[in-house]
């Protein structure tokens, strides 16, 4: 079931939570809505679900599920599955009764027989690997288990659209990782259309077919994770998707100067701010004729496949972060307090005035 939003806007009192938004989600897609808190991502999800109404303005917005106009359809009739951040399980019902709820409230005509309900609930519980806990109450389950029950409950009514509001937000890192992989697997297997909200860029990039990046009630960019990371449309997207180092200074005659640091760069004269990712910083013991960016190591932390190094210098307003491979780390014999030279491998600039389409990237 595809989802199409036309001109959807939302005000809460005088504050505009969503500027008019258009969005197409294809059938079978898994889409992440990514943004900081207050970006309007949850509001957008709740409008798709029908838990919130879009503004009724002169040109009212429209929500289509496939060909069906659901703009004025009540949430209970939209045939969606909604998974809440804090699970919202019915505490007085057993796991089994929670999952069966959506089936047992169907009108008598459409309700399956009790045997069929039982079979379906157990199939779902098997799928979420909780069949042995069917008789437990929610309070007796861990957070991860509760979220799996909540997912099974949403899937029981065989929704065409599954909506998840920060589904893993309340869980610890390890469980979150596991559930993510498991959700992706489930999505591929059952092939429904899913939209989930997250503020965690790693989660959005790992899980989604496409990511919708939002800020201040606007859609900043819609792209595949790969495209998004490689070619961010503006500074917000670039900064939100990962750690960023800033290099700010004056360019004259092809040399950017900043305190005692300088660097040859092919840019017109004027004030410049260049952005680069931690992995785009190379560290050496000696400066080159092209670049002289002296830095001091203030912290070292090995994280997984690489080593994160924090760098400070007089000419830097904020410390830099560089990631180094373990072999390089050993080769350079890095230690805290060591003085080195940084070399940008690759950088971007987003002129501040017009944030759109003026992105430039260079390989240094």
């Amino acid at each position, binding site marked *: 079931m595809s989802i199409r939003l036309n001109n959807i806007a939302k005000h809460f009192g005088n504050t505009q939570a969503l500027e008019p938004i258009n969005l197409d989600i294809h059938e079978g897609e898994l889409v992440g809505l990514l943004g900081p808190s207050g970006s309007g991502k949850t509001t957008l999800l709740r409008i798709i*679900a029908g*838990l919130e109404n879009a503004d009724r303005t002169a040109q009212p917005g429209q929500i289509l599920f496939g060909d069906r106009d659901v703009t004025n359809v*009540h*949430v*209970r*009739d939209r*045939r*969606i*599955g*909604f998974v*809440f951040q*804090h699970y*919202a*399980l*019915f*505490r*007085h*019902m057993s796991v089994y009764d929670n999952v069966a*709820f*959506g089936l047992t*409230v*169907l009108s008598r005509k459409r309700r399956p027989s009790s045997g069929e309900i039982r079979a379906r609930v157990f199939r779902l519980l098997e799928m979420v690997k909780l069949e042995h806990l069917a008789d437990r*109450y929610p*309070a*007796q389950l861990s957070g991860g288990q509760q979220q799996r029950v909540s997912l099974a*409950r*949403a899937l*029981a*009514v065989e929704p065409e659209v599954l909506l998840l509001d920060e589904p893993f937000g309340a869980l610890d890192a390890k469980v979150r990782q596991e559930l993510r992989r498991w959700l992706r697997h489930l999505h591929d297997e059952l092939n429904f259309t899913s939209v989930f909200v997250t503020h965690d860029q790693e989660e959005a990039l790992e899980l989604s077919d496409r990511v919708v990046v939002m800020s201040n009630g606007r859609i900043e960019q819609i792209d595949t994770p790969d495209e998004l990371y490689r070619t961010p449309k503006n500074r917000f997207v670039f900064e939100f998707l990962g750690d960023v180092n800033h290099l700010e200074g004056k360019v004259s005659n092809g040399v950017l100067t900043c305190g005692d640091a300088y660097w040859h760069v092919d840019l017109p004269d004027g004030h410049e701010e260049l952005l680069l990712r931690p992995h785009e910083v190379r560290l050496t013991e000696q400066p080159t004729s092209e670049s002289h960016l002296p830095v001091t190591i203030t912290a070292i932390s090995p994280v997984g496949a690489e080593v994160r190094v924090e760098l400070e210098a007089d000419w830097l307003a904020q410390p830099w972060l560089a990631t180094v491979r373990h072999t390089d780390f050993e080769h350079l014999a890095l230690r805290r307090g060591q003085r080195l030279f940084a070399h940008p491998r690759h950088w971007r600039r987003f002129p501040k005035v017009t944030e759109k389409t003026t992105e430039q990237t260079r390989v240094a």
Partner: protein
Amino acid sequence: MSQLATWRTGSTRVLPGFGLSMGISVLFISLVLLLPITGLFGQLAELSLAEYFAIITEGRVVASYMVTIGAAAVAALVNAIFGLLLAWVLVRYEFPGKRLLDALMDLPFALPTAVAGITLATLYAGSGWMGGLLEPLGFQVAYTWVGIALAMAFTSIPFVVRTVQPVLEDLPAEVDEAAMSLGATDGVAFRRVILPHIWPALVTGTGLAFVRSLGEFGAIIFIAGNMPYETEITALMIFVKLQEYDYAGASAIASVVLFVSLALLLAINIWQGRFVRRLHGGKG
């Protein structure tokens, strides 16, 4: 006291005042709450078992049990519905006068029972504002068991409202939304999701209202009419026996009332504990 001191557990060990607060509490509870009850048993000991049963099963006394229990049950039932409605309206909706309505809920607790008694009696007597309206229609409230139930309902309505209100407030919006997203209509969602959630509080509140009604005296005697076998409540029976200096008779009936109310109080506590355990964890 040194033995008491060893009972104190880890995190609170550093705080002072255990001996003093324990001393005051135990002394007070013993002297004020428990010691007087021994007086009742002392009086009862002067009765033989046969005498005791003769008193508590006498026709007029049994009739008073019936009146009291019947009226209290009706009052509790009415309050369960009315109290639920009030709690719901106060928690879920915004409307002008809401704060006043909320404050008004505590009136029956704050108003002395005798004041409530004479006011209700005056209002619902044939010459009163309500009685004048109702009696021509054939509803006699004052001096009937309906009046007794009315007075009981008046004095005990806050029990239901104030017990249900906080539980309803704690119910997150997400639970409503989950029920609706699963296709439940308002009626079904209320019956299957919201009602079970507030059920323990509703039963507790109704139970407390019932216990209170069983023992209520001041609010009832003015409107009851106090006709033997018809509109005489048990608390009044005790009072009447006392006026006749029949201490043994009063004690026997009082022991029944005391036993029933303490048993109900205990039952409510245990019942509530069972639900709390299920909703907030623990095995089984």
